[in-house]
């Protein structure tokens, strides 16, 4: 073991940090397309499409993630003997490494859908009408006109959501059973704290991990933001997502 307590903690918490990163990385690729679908659903005129998407978004934005975890786990558990076992998928669907991302996907897609919904509505109506007048199909209009612009508008706020999602991974192991040594940053920091009661050291190192990874997310998002807006002259580009606080979840 290393002599320096800070370096020692950094080494000990490296593996737990991977679990937080895993939960975020497993949720984003599913959460993003689902959010787009939900946002498009919310924009529809048909009540059968609009109502379910709106209700989903409202429910998962309007309730605490902490309770969503408890609820989904206990509901999934109550279906275990009747459904998952007979189907032979219980080993997968009841695993925290699966349920964790499922809940995070539901949560983040609701928040992101609201962001994309706002952005889609902010695309100038005249452009969409012009595209329709050119004879473009609805899919074509979405694909080439509304969505590219909505994504550019929504990107800074979506970046923010990604960081919140990463922070939200802390709640997984407060609510789900821990299997073997599969522990995340908060879990491990708490365990270290219970050994020597040095709250300042262990929680600060855990905070450092969150801080560094958050900055990496912002950096990446800012780089992609520049890419998205490379057709504009630098002066005309909208402000890139930055670590400076500007958006709320």
């Amino acid at each position: 073991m290393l002599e320096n307590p800070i370096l020692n903690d950094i080494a000990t918490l490296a593996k737990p940090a991977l679990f937080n990163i895993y939960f975020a990385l497993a949720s984003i690729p599913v959460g993003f397309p689902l959010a787009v679908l939900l946002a498009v659903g919310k924009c529809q005129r048909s009540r059968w499409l609009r109502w379910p998407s709106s209700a989903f978004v409202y429910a998962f934005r309007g309730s605490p993630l902490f309770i969503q975890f408890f609820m989904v786990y206990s509901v999934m558990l109550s279906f275990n003997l009747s459904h998952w076992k007979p189907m032979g998928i219980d080993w997968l669907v009841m695993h925290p490494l699966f349920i964790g991302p499922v809940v995070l996907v539901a949560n983040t897609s609701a928040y992101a859908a609201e962001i994309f919904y706002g952005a889609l509505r902010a695309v100038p109506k005249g452009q969409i009408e012009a595209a329709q007048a050119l004879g473009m199909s609805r899919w074509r209009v979405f694909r080439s006109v509304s969505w590219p612009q909505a994504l550019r508008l929504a990107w800074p706020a979506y970046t923010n959501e990604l960081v919140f999602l990463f922070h939200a991974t802390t709640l997984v192991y407060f609510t789900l059973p821990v299997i073997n040594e599969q522990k995340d940053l908060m879990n491990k920091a708490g365990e270290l704290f219970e050994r020597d009661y040095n709250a300042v050291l262990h929680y600060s190192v855990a905070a450092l991990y969150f801080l560094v990874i958050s900055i990496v997310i912002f950096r990446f998002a800012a780089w992609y933001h520049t890419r998205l807006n490379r057709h504009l002259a630098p002066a005309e580009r909208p402000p890139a997502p930055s670590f400076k606080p500007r958006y709320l979840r």
Partner: protein
Amino acid sequence: MKKQLLKIMIPALSMAVAGAASAQTVRLASEGAYAPFNYMDDSGTLAGFEIDLGNALCERAELDCEWVQNEWDSMIPNLVAGNYDGILAGMTITEERLQTIDFSDEYFPPDPSKFVVLKGTPLDTSALSGLKIGVQGGTIQAAYAEETYGADNDILSFETGDQAIADLAAGNVDVVLADGGFVDPVIEGSQGAIVLAGDEVLIGGGMGVGMRKDDDALEAAFNAALASMKADGSLDALIQEYFNRGPFYAD
């Protein structure tokens, strides 16, 4: 403004600190999720074997006691941090725990741990492999399962014993390892759905009241009260009432 606030805060805090140090009230902590040792009864207050026992001990030691409910996993840290003075929460006296805290003499004899499974699940406890074993995190059973079966099985740690049993009943873990005193009523109350499996294992010693290392006066008081409860048979009577076992401490 800040200075004024400090002027008010400091005396208030020193009173709080001094009050905690000199008060006669002894705070006892329990989990409230480990029936029949300790649980929340239907009126929503802490009850159970250890609550009755703690109250009897305080009465004999002429101490004013009050109960604090605390989650199991922060039980020892919060004792050391001074949020309460004694733990009665089905805590087994172990070498590892003795490094951080002290225990009174035992108030419950060494209790063999038992494996429970859903009915119709055969189990060879001498060679478990590829199974999901449920335990309550931070218990002697958790440490034992990790050491003995950790290499070939998945050990699922739950916050409470009740959660482990809930996951067993729902088939999400194959087997739960827990104190016999805790699983016996589960087996009885499940009407055959949850059954005993394999051999029982004796992991730790008896259970004792956990106290801070420097709290020698309280330790002496509790030990004296325990000795008198053992001598006059009232401890055996309590164990009999809650567990239908014993007598253990009769001469």
